[in-house]
């Protein structure tokens, strides 16, 4: 039953990733693309967690943790760059 739920979740999260990538492609402004990239990272974290449940290994959680850190830092750095013109002043 968990395997079936995991397969359904993989299909649903893949659809969510495609929708976020669509906004990343058509977004009219730069900040729309930044927000779409942030959502894409969140979806990728969910996909990694589901694959970790499906394969019954705890090795994937470090990947999810790294994705969370890199996604947060890249979003903040993009916003800082759009606001001030550089990242570290």
């Amino acid at each position: 039953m968990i395997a079936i739920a995991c397969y359904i979740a993989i299909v649903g999260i893949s659809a969510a990733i495609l929708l976020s990538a669509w906004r990343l492609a058509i977004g009219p402004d730069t900040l729309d693309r930044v927000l779409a990239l942030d959502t894409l990272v969140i979806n990728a974290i969910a996909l990694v967690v589901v694959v970790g449940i499906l394969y019954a290994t705890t090795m994937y959680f470090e990947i999810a943790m790294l994705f969370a850190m890199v996604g947060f830092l890249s979003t903040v750095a993009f916003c800082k760059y759009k606001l001030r013109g550089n990242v570290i002043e």
Partner: protein
Amino acid sequence: MTLVAEILVAALILIGTFFILVGSIGIVKLPDMMRRLHAPTKATTLGIGAMLIASMLYFLMIRGIPSLHELMITIFMFLTAPVTAFMVAKAHILLDRKTQEELSPTGVDVGWATLDRDAGSTSKAKAPLAAPDGQPG
């Protein structure tokens, strides 16, 4: 007991999938940048939260491995999601002239703190002069 745990884990995975899909549909379908900002926060808190609770329950009750990595990921995501939304909203307000003109008046003689030039860190010495009647600049 194992069956109850399996049903619980499967239900939590499906709930998380639903909220993540709702967040991504929202980011495509909503018309405005500030309205679009609402969608991924639901995906972050409810979707990732349900997924990580499902993962913790699965490894604890079915595999017999207590794992605390998910708690770290949950705490990190819940701490960083408001900061991300705040940064995107602040950059959007400061860069978009049309949004600035649509803001409602504050009701006092000090403007919006994000847009007030005297309240920023660029001119800290002028801030008491700009608000002489004791209002925080």
